[in-house]
């Protein structure tokens, strides 16, 4: 088994040591990272993930403990060795890119080589090569301010790689980027890991990125809470037999990154009790429903996909169950259109026609009452109409609506039973959720 390229031993970093505002940023951190691994340090802001990253970069000496890179304690380096380490062994990219604004893109990328006393010709050739690879060579002579965020981050990646380090650190590299650029940069990092065989350590609080990593260190309050291997990736760090078993929890971690293992266990059993589909099926179904809602998928295809066996990329439901799902979905989506129309009239510039709005409210009331198996009288009908109009106008809140439904007729309510009131309110709320801003 290969030796770890980075090893943090009993790392403790304490800011303002001994003062009243003493702050333990890192506590007893033990981390081993192997060559060519893609590691994510994950956690909410303030959890110490960036602190740990800076400790690995050699710019934040730990209060106690050691950081070994290739077996050498980096905090024993003299300034020259440290500069050399930060050129040849490790490179970093930041959320805010940290390019030097007064230097051209080309000079920014070549800066580490300037420090390393490369000749102008050689370093520019090297810099152009990288800029070309990451698609920003056309911007080489511009200043960083003239580039988009995504381009800047690619320039920063070029700079980090210009002296061909073994390790690339990334501190929330896509925190400032739009989704397209985010995808491009994340894919670039993945490519650097796979193609260039660099070790990558990414700091992020965005659970979307977790699938990229071989392993994720979950951090909280300055500690590594747990270390989770990504079951979808061939592990580099060999897992000792029986010592670590990949369970549903690892999967749930991806869906609910901020929950503790205890909470995940609860979620797991709750899923079993209340739902007929498991988390994997849910994940796929969510994806399909999203496409339906966005209008990118036809209902027939959705129906078919529900019945395709799970192994073949479908959901694997029975025909009956699938039918039930699609009926419900269809009903909610269609009926929510009336909420949308009502809201559109309210929000439009001109005053809405009363007649038209009344008609929409009547239709919405009909949908709601359809959900109620019993019979209702005229009085209830009028009260219901009033309440629905107020609710859809936004004059009352969901819980007031529910309360009014459950209040007796004598007291000015609709006079439904408690359970009926809850069910009908839930249904109307679903319609409103789908209907607004459509």
């Amino acid at each position, binding site marked *: 088994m290969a030796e770890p390229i980075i090893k943090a031993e009993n790392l403790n970093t304490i800011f303002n040591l001994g003062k009243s505002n003493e702050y333990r940023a890192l506590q007893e951190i033990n981390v081993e990272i192997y060559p060519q691994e893609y590691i994510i340090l994950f956690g909410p802001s303030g959890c110490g993930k960036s602190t740990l990253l*800076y400790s690995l*970069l050699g*710019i*934040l000496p730990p209060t106690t403990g050691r950081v070994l890179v290739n077996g050498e304690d980096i905090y024993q380096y003299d*300034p*020259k060795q*440290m*500069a*050399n380490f*930060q*050129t040849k062994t490790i*490179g*970093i990219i*930041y959320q805010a890119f*940290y*390019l*030097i*604004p*007064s*230097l051209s893109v080309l000079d920014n990328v070549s*800066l*580490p080589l*300037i*420090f*390393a*006393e490369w000749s*102008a010709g050689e370093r520019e050739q090297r810099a152009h090569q990288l800029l070309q690879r990451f698609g920003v060579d056309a911007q080489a002579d511009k200043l960083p301010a003239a580039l988009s965020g995504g381009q800047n981050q690619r320039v920063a990646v070029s*700079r*980090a790689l210009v*002296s061909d380090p073994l390790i690339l650190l990334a501190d929330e590299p896509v925190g400032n980027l739009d989704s397209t650029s985010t995808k491009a940069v994340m894919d670039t990092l993945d490519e650097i890991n796979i193609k260039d065989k660099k070790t990558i350590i990414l700091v992020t609080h965005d659970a979307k990125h977790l699938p990229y990593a071989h392993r994720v260190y979950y951090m909280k309050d300055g500690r590594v809470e747990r270390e989770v291997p990504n079951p979808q990736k061939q592990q580099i760090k060999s897992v000792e037999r029986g010592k670590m078993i990949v369970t549903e929890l690892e999967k749930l971690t991806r869906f609910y990154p901020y929950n503790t293992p205890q909470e995940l266990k609860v979620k797991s059993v709750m899923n079993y009790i209340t739902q007929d589909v498991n988390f994997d099926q849910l994940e796929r179904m969510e994806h399909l429903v999203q496409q339906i809602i966005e209008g990118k998928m036809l209902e027939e295809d959705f129906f078919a996909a529900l019945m395709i066996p799970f192994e073949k990329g479908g959901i694997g439901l029975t025909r009956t169950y699938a039918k039930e799902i699609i009926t419900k979905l269809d009903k909610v989506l269609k009926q929510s259109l009336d909420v949308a129309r009502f809201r559109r009239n309210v929000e439009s510039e001109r005053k809405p026609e009363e007649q038209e709005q009344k008609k929409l409210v009547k239709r919405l009331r009909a949908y709601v009452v359809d959900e109620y198996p019993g019979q209702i009288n005229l009085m209830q009908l009028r009260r219901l109409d009033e309440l629905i109009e107020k609710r859809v106008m936004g004059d009352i809140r969901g819980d007031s609506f529910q309360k009014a439904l459950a209040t007796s007729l004598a007291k000015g309510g609709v006079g439904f039973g408690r359970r009926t009131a809850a069910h009908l309110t839930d249904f109307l709320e679903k319609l409103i959720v789908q209907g607004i801003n459509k």
Partner: protein
Amino acid sequence: MKTRDIARLSTRMFKTNPSRTWLTILGMGVGIGAVVILVGLGFGLQNILMEQIVFGETLLSLNVTNPSSKAVVLNEKMVEELGNIPNVKDVSPLAQMSALITFEKLTSNGSLQGVMPSYFKYAGISTVKGKAFSEEGEKETSSILLSTAALKLFGVDVEQAVGKKVTFRVFVQQPDSTEVKEVPIEKEYTISGVVEDPFSISAFILLDEITSRFAIPYFERAQVRVEDTQFLDAATKEVVAKGFMVTAFSKTVEQANKIFRGIQVVLALFGSIALIVSSIGMFNTMTVTLLERTGEIGIMRTIGGSPNTIKVLFISESILMGFLGGMMGILIGVVFGFGVNFLLNSVAARFGGVKMNLFDFPLVFLLFIASFSAIVGFLTGVFPARRAASLSPLDAIRYK
């Protein structure tokens, strides 16, 4: 880091913050300029004085005069004795007689002075027009040199004096009496040159012309020329021992130089106040630059820039700024000085004054100022640079 890259990285401020950079340089320039102007004035004053003294032989000569008691006098024998003092190369005596000088139809009282041709260079007397007596070739027995004062009296322009004729009547003291007899010299002398002396009405002819006609009891004074400066003191002692009075130009020059060095130091001190003010300004700029660059420094430190690299960048930037400030200061000072010189000279030319340069800037001094300004730049930069280098990269990178 390579020198070329250092130069490129440390001249970024001209792009990123040109106005502040140039203003700082201008501030330095004004400070340095003040020093240059004031010291330049010192040099100018010194030169004005020194130009009056003919260097070389003059500095190697002692001016020997009779003591007022006349206990000893400079007669032929004494002159010979002075010539025998060790390391004395030559003695050039001057005989003086009162005379009536007649120029064209005008006659005036004046002194007639008989000298050897070497006297002029030993005494440091220069001609403003024409030539002094030559030491070689035929003796110019019928040539005469007049002082500018004499020419003024006769109302002759210096330019037109040469070639005109002059005659004399000499007052000769009768032996053993106080009576004075007026004896004409039956000879016309031709003016061959004009001697710079705006105060005394005098005429110079060759010593032989006087001694061959009159008996001279003693010479008025003599110039004793020694072989080398190191013998000046010894020769002075010997001459004094014989009872004569001695003055030496070399001493005067030495004294004057000392005084002027003092004046220059005082002037430079005044200038330094301006320089200190502008240095503080530049220090301030460098400190602000440091704050502004803190983030950049942090970035550089994390991508392979060592603390030393950062220090070098900062210091070279401030040296460059200091040096450019020095250059601008030199420009300001020299342009100002030469401007004043030109103005004064054009005024002087119009009103008939003497032409002179109030400001002077020796090249060595300017070179000194140029390197001095770079040193000032270094000094104002070294402190911020050290702070920049010692910043923690993490604090620096997070600095906002």
